[in-house]
């Protein structure tokens, strides 16, 4: 008998083991739903699978009577657009400030305390101010994502820049590089894959902020729809939306990993 820590499941067993908890969850849900339906047949908290199926059909495959759009896809499009813009802008800010403060000690001394302080402020608490400054348009949702994650990303990139071996900076200088050249040719390319890591780490928060922003001021989007139907507790809509969001989050993360491995192969072997 092998020790527990040495026992590895075979491939098919691993797959089965991995799927098993999901099946249990589905089963538990079914039981819970039936039980609640037995008590109150109009219970909305745990809708039956056929109710969920209906809701999906109505939102995703039937054009809305009001606007002629497919609500589900429209929501997805709007949310993804905001999400990607938010991530892109936050990454750009994080990269620029993080890289520059990490590379230039004077600038670092100047801005790091401020960035640290800002990163500790919970954005939800200063929403009113944010909305005043950035308005309530399409911009504001993107801005909330940016404010939510850019400080963290800035600190992370700052840290990563500082962690690059000092030897490389010295070597570059002996090759005749000035500060600008070092930043562009030595630091920047090495920080890019680390920026992808930082984006991946921020994805969870970014979704939170997107949903929060859409709940406050929006007329479409995945978060908006959840907010809108929440007051009627339409779990038959909320549940598929949540699963969809989870899937999109997974997809985004997966694509970032792929991108990083494709463009920065040297980064992934190094470790």
């Amino acid at each position, binding site marked *: 008998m092998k020790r527990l820590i040495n026992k590895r499941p075979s491939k098919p067993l691993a797959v089965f083991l991995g799927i098993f908890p999901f099946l249990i969850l589905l089963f538990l849900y079914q039981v819970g739903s039936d039980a609640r339906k037995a008590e109150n047949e109009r219970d909305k908290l745990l809708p039956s699978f056929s109710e969920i199926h209906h809701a999906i059909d109505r939102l995703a495959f039937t054009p809305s009577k009001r606007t002629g759009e497919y609500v589900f896809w429209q929501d997805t499009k709007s949310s993804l657009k905001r999400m990607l813009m938010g991530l892109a802008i936050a990454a750009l800010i994080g990269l620029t400030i993080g890289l520059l403060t990490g590379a230039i000690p004077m600038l670092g001394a100047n801005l790091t305390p401020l960035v640290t302080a800002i990163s500790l402020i919970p954005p939800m608490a200063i929403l009113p101010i944010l909305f005043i400054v950035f308005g309530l348009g399409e911009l504001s949702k993107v801005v909330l994502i940016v404010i939510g994650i850019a400080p963290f990303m800035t600190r992370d990139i700052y840290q990563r820049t500082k962690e690059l071996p000092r*030897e490389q900076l010295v*070597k570059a200088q*002996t*090759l*005749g590089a000035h500060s*600008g*050249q070092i930043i562009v040719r030595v630091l920047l*390319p090495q920080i890019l894959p680390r920026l992808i890591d930082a984006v991946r780490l921020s994805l969870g928060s970014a979704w939170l902020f997107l949903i929060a922003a859409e709940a406050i001021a929006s007329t479409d989007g995945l978060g908006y729809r959840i907010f809108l139907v929440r007051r009627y507790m339409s779990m038959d809509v909320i549940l598929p939306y949540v699963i969809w969001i989870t899937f999109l989050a997974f997809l985004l993360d997966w694509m970032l990993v792929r991108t990083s491995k494709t463009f920065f192969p*040297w980064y992934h072997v190094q470790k």
Partner: protein
Amino acid sequence: MSESTAKNSTERAPLIQAKRLGKSYGDHIVLEGISKDVYEGEFITLVGASGCGKSTFLNMLLGTEVVTAGKLLLDGKPIVSEPDPARGIVFQKYSVFPHLTVRQNVALGLEFDQSPLIGRLFGAKRKAALAQADEWLAAVGLAQAVNKYPHELSGGMQQRLAIAQALIKRPRVLLLDEPFGALDPGIRKDMHKLLLDLWREYKLTVFMVTHDIQEGFYLGTRLWVFDKDRHDEHAPERYGATVTFDLPVGDMDEESLNKIEKSLTAA
């Protein structure tokens, strides 16, 4: 302490002069009273117990540590207090850029020079730079690996690359801080041969720190031993190390050798 015994001290002015050179961090005196002349084409190996200040000395030559006492001159002028292309360096690790291919690593020194703004060349200029890089890579025996990334190279090949990268700038001095410390003994031998070949062919002036006294003897034309010649048991930081032996290689009595061996394992 023997006076400078370099062979070619007769005609030319020294390339590097240390005059009562010293270095301290606050109250902690690391190095003191180093007075040496080094002429072009010499190969100095530096040995000494761990923590005695060999790297510190090299870093002062490199310009990453400031001189705190005495003078350190290059071509008769105080050495520039920042790294520059006059002094090439090879560290034990992290000398090469992991995100650039072998060829790009070497061409980088030319790109910095010819593209002052962003340090990146395009078109014909870039081709010329890469071609020049290939020549140097052939010289260090990396002709087969020009398109690989450093992580695809063995430790020895990475150090070859680091040397080629440094030499393309034709530095006045080449500084090496335990360059082969992390290599296997077999590969080490190849590297010794390469380094001596390059030194002869390009008339380099080399400072190399090593922990391996045999390596020191085999490679150098002069071996410097760093050690404290004064000790204060109660305040070991009162006195710094200096160059206690300056040996022309090949000319070595039994007693000195024993003394050196002892000083190396003192730490």
